[in-house]
């Protein structure tokens, strides 16, 4: 029951994130990326509790979650920088405007 709730919500978060990424607003796309990442984080945290030894939650799962939050932050920083540049020069945050490079 526990597994269903946790993993179910992780999978749901994963699916919602993918859906969000397929949208047109650049900010929303970035949020989608974060959601997928957090789906992974959620799954990790749940599994870390499952692999607890001697009453201590598995530190491996926690540490990788910390690392992934850090790298996720980096990705978002790069992404936001790109969005700011796109907006500054071209006055749009619509990802469907990004179709000048076709072939």
């Amino acid at each position, binding site marked *: 029951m526990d597994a269903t709730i946790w993993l179910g919500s*992780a999978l749901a978060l*994963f699916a919602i*994130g*993918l859906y969000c*990424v397929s949208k047109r607003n*650049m900010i929303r*796309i*970035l949020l*989608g*990326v974060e959601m*997928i*990442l957090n*789906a*992974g*984080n959620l*799954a*990790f945290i*749940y*599994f870390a509790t*499952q*692999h607890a030894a001697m009453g201590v939650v*598995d*530190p*491996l*799962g926690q*540490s*990788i979650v910390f*690392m*992934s939050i850090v*790298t*996720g932050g*980096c*990705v978002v920083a*790069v*992404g936001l920088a*790109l*969005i700011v*540049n*796109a907006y500054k*020069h*071209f006055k749009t945050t619509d*990802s469907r405007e*990004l179709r*000048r*490079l076709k*072939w």
Partner: protein
Amino acid sequence: MVIPTLMYFMFSPMLVVLTGLLAERTGQPKLRDVVAVIVSALGVVFVWTLYNALQAAPDKILVFSLGGGPPLGASFEIDMMGIFMAFSATILGFFATVYSYNYMEYDTRLTEYYTLLSALVVGMMGVAFAGDFFTLFIFWEMMGIASYALVSFRKDLWGPIEAGFKYMVMGSVGSTVLFFGIALVYGITGTLNFAQISTVIHGQPMNLWYYLIFALFIIGFGVKTAIVPMHTWLPDAHPEAPSPVSAMLSGILIETGLYALTRVLFLLFEPSFFKLTIAVFAALTMTLGNMMALRQDDVKRMLAYSSIAQVGYMLIGISTGLTYGLMGTLLHVLNHSLMKGLAFLSIGSIVYETGTRDINKLQGVGKMMPFTTLAVIVSFLGLGGVPGINGFISKFILFNAALGAGMLILAILGVLNSALSMAYYLRVIIVLLSGEAEEGMTAKEAPILMVGVTLVMAVLIIVLGLYPNPVVGIASSASEALIDNISKYIGVILS
């Protein structure tokens, strides 16, 4: 021997950034470029020392853990295959850095540029040496973030921003999907160490979770590797990046993705499980890549599509599931990193001098830039698989392995594709060599360092083509390492 390499890992980007800031303050900006070149050269030296240390090691495997042993600590597992990849990465990184010295001369923010470039190399070395998913993921992200920033380095133009954003989104979707896959693996096994995972998972009956993991990994690694249909970022990102970065991306970054995919697939599954899927992807990838490259007018974009096609050839080797095929893949990774690196660098010189990427406007450039054109010809003939140049040997092995594994259709498709690909390579060569230059088209030979780098690489390519045996030997032992090293690694970890 392991310690200095790890130090190099950690500190080379920092070294570049510190000297860069220092150099800017003191008004000696060239110092930063020189330090970047030295740092990238040191990378090659360190890989070489690692290679020697590995040869001396009893099991042909070196294991080094940070923060305690497995399962907790991050561990590096250094074997022939990793060395092979790291060697390809550092050598191309060195060439690209030297080339940038002239190529990026008129750009600003070069401290960032060199730092990112060295972070890219370090990321790829980390992926090559990773001994667990933790390390793999961190270096994977490091490599990814550095490359996103490098693609959109010239942020004042539309092209790089658009290409960079697409690449960033697709790449980070890939790596987050990969992260989710890692989470599931962790859930099943309770560890992230490759050796321990392998002892738990390998040989288990397959159930839905494994399929899910497999699909997640294919997507996670496949986006970076540009497997069709997840390749759509590549034809945008590669042409828009500065040429040395294009060379790094096409030459080695997508192959690093392929390497990680190979590693993980062989770690988790039996070859019979993924053979067919990979074969389908291989056929799709090479056919589509070649077909799209045929009609491109932008020469860098054409090269980008050709990279996709080459990834298709490499996938053939994996789909055979044989050591022999893997050896072909590895050999093609090295050869392709040299050839495609050279192709992008020498075409970059032409773009630098003429200011255009349109193939039709490059008529008569051959006479103005003879050495660069020579380098272009060598690399293009190699990519097309002309005997006598290194690309031929690896393609020969790949197609032959496909035949040996009973995948006749794949071999035939490969040969046909290879023949088809000559069409667009020849087109560029002919345009460069023939005809009179257009009105107002003037170009002179590129600066000395750029020409020097391209010629050195051209010579290397021809030497490897005429006498491939040493590299074939290394690739052969590297491919055996992939099959054997899991058990050896298990032995080292568990003892």
